[in-house]
């Protein structure tokens, strides 16, 4: 079992529905977010190219945040999901400093918070909130070990990339390009 997500940068329109769905589903405090949209503009007028990316925690295989955590609050759940146990977290910020994707933030209550792939939904067999609300259906989620899952099919058929592969984290959010 290895959960992963593939996001189609050609279909994404940057509507931010995934962001709002996540904030609602996970009770994210106002002013914070666990996922966000980045717009990349490349080139110079009139030869411009735009890429829209819905970004979040990459649930890395070689997760630096889990390695650096002094208490073991950051840990890897079954299926490769990186989570934080809030009653073990001391709010030292080591994981925030070690994440190349800046996917973590300090919750106003003090502990560190981040995307969980909506683990509470996964255990019920549902998809993460962001995936299930996406109006353009540009996000594919599933088990990489299952070759018939949405994400495996999408990755098999399309060219894709990951963010900052040079950081050596083996991320599991793929962008179809």
């Amino acid at each position, binding site marked *: 079992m290895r959960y992963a997500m593939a996001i189609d940068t050609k279909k994404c329109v*940057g509507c*931010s529905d995934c*962001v709002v769905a996540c904030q609602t589903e996970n009770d994210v405090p106002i*002013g*914070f*977010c666990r996922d*966000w*949209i*980045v*717009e*990349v*503009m*490349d*080139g*110079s007028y009139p030869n411009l190219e735009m890429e*829209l990316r819905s970004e979040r925690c990459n649930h890395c295989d070689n997760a*630096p945040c889990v*390695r*650096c*955590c*002094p*208490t*073991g*609050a950051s840990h890897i759940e079954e299926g490769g999901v990186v989570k934080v146990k*809030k*009653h*073990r*977290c*001391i*709010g*030292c*910020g*080591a994981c*925030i*400093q*070690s*994440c*190349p*994707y*800046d996917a973590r*933030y*300090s919750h106003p*209550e*003090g*502990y*560190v918070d981040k995307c969980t792939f909506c683990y509470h939904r996964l255990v019920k067999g549902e998809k993460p909130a962001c995936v299930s609300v996406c109006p353009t259906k540009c996000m594919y989620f599933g088990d990489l070990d299952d070759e018939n899952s949405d994400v495996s099919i999408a990755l098999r058929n399309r060219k894709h990339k990951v*963010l*900052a592969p*040079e*950081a*050596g*984290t083996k991320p599991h959010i793929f962008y179809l390009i």
Partner: protein
Amino acid sequence: MKEELFVSGRAIPNIDPYLNIWHWQIPVYLFLGGLAAGLLFFAALYTLLGKEKQMPTAVKWATFLVPPALVLGLLSLFLDLKHKMFFWQLYTVIRLESPMSWGAWTLLIITPISILWSMMFLRELLEAWKGKDGKPAPMAVWSLKFLEKNQWIEQFIQWLVKYRKVLAWLMIYYGLILGIYTGILLSAFNARPLWNTSLLGPLFLVSGLSTAAATIMWMSKDHLERSTISRIDLMLIGIELFLIVHLFMGFLASSAVQIEAASLFLGGPYTVMFWVFVVFMGLILPAILETLELLGYKIPVMIPAILILFGGLVFRFVMVEAGQITRYLY
């Protein structure tokens, strides 16, 4: 041209636009930790070499600074925590992969050791403590009486003195770990290219030893002790300069993110701060002054000592601040 924007509004204070989640507390701790590590190292070194008589400041008097330095350092680390009431979770587990975890355990071991060490010289300190009028200070008289009444304290101190070599070995070992840990704490974060170099551990260790040497020099009243420590300090400054040059050679020969990180110091916003305040005023100038002093010129030892301490503090502030700007994305 390439432009990347957060279009969904990622209003995370202290993360965007820079990742400065760490503020003054961390560099202050790194400075005090390095200083304490160095003082303990010198005290233990001269005890094991059997030079307690020749180096009284290094072995005895300077070590009285260590417990307060460590306590203040720990306090500033505690102030940095965002989930403060859960700090005890650090001591429920030992995670060797996480430098912060074994650093926390090292501090738990070395703080009591440093208190035990300075306890050995408490009586001597109290006896030498004179008021302005030349008579023993009232506080000292009272404390000495208290010691007389409680003979078990005296017996415990005698027992410590008997086993001081064991304490010294522990102090050398844990002192070096503490000193190198102040650098490894930062170098373990691969997402911050400026920190992500294994040279940071040795560099912070040497810098910590040098600040400790400066403190001993400043406190010492013995000419021979001062010149011995001054020679050691000159050597440490030499090693530090060598490591700094290698740090930048390493960055410039590395990947794009590390070249960018180095450029913050090579023409970027931290250039003056680093090369003028850290390298010139904190290393080269005190080295020149110390050399002149060793050659026989009259230079108050306070000046190079303050310069070294100030340079060491600025060095840690610059590294922590600048490191948090360096990143992989956006």
